[in-house]
Structures are given as C-alpha cells and as structure tokens.
C-alpha cells in the first residue's frame, strides 16, 4: 500500500485560483507549465481546468472582498486530500495591498494554507520549488 501511495504521489495535478491577482503571478504560473525551460510536467504535474480534478491548489492574489466568497467556494470544490499553496506575497500577507479596505485577506485567515511562495511575482524556479514542497506534504496526506 505504501508503494501505491508513493506512486500516487508522483501525479499532483495543479489548479490555480485567481483571488484578485494582478495576473503577474498567473503569468509566472503559466510560464512554469508552458515554457520548455521550466517544464513543471517533469514532476508529473498537469494544470487542470476543473477544481474537481485538482490535488494542489495554487492561489494568487490578495483575496479581494468581491472575489472572496467565490474563491473560497471554488477551493471547497477541490476533493480531499489537497494542498494549498499561496503564490506571491499578496495571498500570504497582502503585499502592497495590505490593510486596504478592498482586501479580505490574507488567505490563511479563511483556509489552511500549507506552503507559501513569496515574491512579486515569484520567479518560476521558486514556484517549482514551492510545488515540490507541496508535493512532499501532499504525498504524506495521501
């Protein structure tokens, strides 16, 4: 059974939630997947279109008031076991939008975050590093 758990851990599917991000982090996320130089598929990752298929949720953006309920709803749609990664300083602390009236975040006020990848935006390698850390946590939960 542990062998199966180990093998299963090599197939983390990624899903990204944009919680009011400026798109900078999203571009870097797309970069990790699409640009041959970073190729996140080596780790067995795949970006999927539906939250139902996901294992690792990447959240970008400072969780604005308007998007808060929708983003949390979307996060709840992801079947267990899942791992949440906060990408960029916005979901971690609010970043430059910290203490703004339009911000409901930081993210860990509402959902349990597992890994933080600070940066504005974080460079693709840093995102890959964060995903690798998330995979370790996820393989234990599986």
């Amino acid at each position, binding site marked *: 059974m542990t062998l199966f758990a180990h093998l299963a851990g090599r197939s983390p599917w990624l899903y990204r939630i944009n919680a009011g991000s400026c798109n900078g982090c999203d571009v870097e996320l797309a970069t990790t997947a699409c640009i*041959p*130089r*970073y*190729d996140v598929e*080596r*780790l067995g990752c795949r970006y999927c279109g539906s939250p139902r298929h996901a294992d690792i949720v990447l959240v970008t953006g400072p969780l604005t008031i308007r998007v808060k309920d929708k983003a949390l709803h979307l996060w709840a749609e992801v079947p267990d076991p899942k791992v949440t990664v906060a990408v960029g*300083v916005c979901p*971690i*602390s*609010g*970043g*430059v939008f*910290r*203490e703004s009236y339009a911000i409901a975040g930081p993210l*860990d006020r509402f959902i*349990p*975050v*597992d*890994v*933080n*990848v*600070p*940066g*504005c935006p*974080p*460079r693709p*390698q*840093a*995102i*890959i*590093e*964060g995903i*690798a*850390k998330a995979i370790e*946590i996820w393989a234990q939960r599986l």
Partner: protein
Amino acid sequence: MGFLKVLLNNLMKGPATEAFPFGPPPAAPHYRGRVAFDPASCTGCGMCELVCPGGAIRIDRDAAGLQLTIWHNTCVFCGLCAHYCLSKAIRQTDDWHLAHPQAEKFHLVERGRVSMIPCVGCGKPILPLSDEVMRLAFKGRTTEIERLRRLCPDCRRIASIREMRHAHRSLV
C-alpha cells in the same frame, strides 16, 4: 509545412529544460532577491521604512538603539530600500529560495539591531557612524574627524565652534 520543420528542429536540439528541481539552480546576475541587512553600516535614517511599498520594513527605536525588521513575506523585491540606503546597509542578494511551509510563515524575517554608544563628550547615547558613511562624507580621514565622529551632535557643534574660534584667533 513550416511547422514540421520547427518540430523536427525541436526534436533534434533536445530539451531546453533547466535541471532545477533535480539539479543546481542558476542565479542570474544582478538578480533582485532576498533583502539582506548589515547593522554595522546602518545610520538609522529610516529612509528604507519610508519608501518600502509593501510595508515590509519596520524600525523600532528605544533607548538602547534601534531594531530593524524585514518581513520577506510582504517584500516585493522592488529594491527601493537598497536604492535609497545611503550607507549600503541594505542590499539585495541573489537568493530566491524563499518558498516555505506555513509553520515558518512568521519566521521568515531579517532582523538587525543597531546599539547606541555613549558620546565621548557628555555620555549621551548616540547611534554610531559607520565607516561607510565616513567614506561617503569625507575624502580623507584626519584624527580631527575621527574625534568628532565619537561625539553627539551637541558636543560636535560645541567642539566645531571651539575649533573655529581657535583658528580665527590664531589668524588675527
């Protein structure tokens, strides 16, 4: 059929992927990464705290000196603090390994303490002037300057005036 040529070319050239998660990570020159703080050259001007857009820098002043705290989790790596830091006490390293588990979220800080030293003249606590500032302010370093360096602003003013009067008298 141009795309077939491209595909064939790609196949021949082989993968362009970096080794990173399995191999050594490359660091670009002049990469703006984790901010490092050197308390020895800090003058306590507070400019970094003022210009930081993310509010990542906080300076706590007390009687014994000042404590500078940088929280990397809200730093946007803009480099303004390093740019405005006259004495280069803040600089950016090429370290980007900042991804961390949630438990370490509030431990990802850079701290530095600048302690007051007593003024040689009156004993009032003053912030020490770093070598870097002296280098920026004066072309050469005389014993005169070195003596003034260890005085508080008030004592320094008195000492300067005394010097000037002495010089004036000797001229007359």
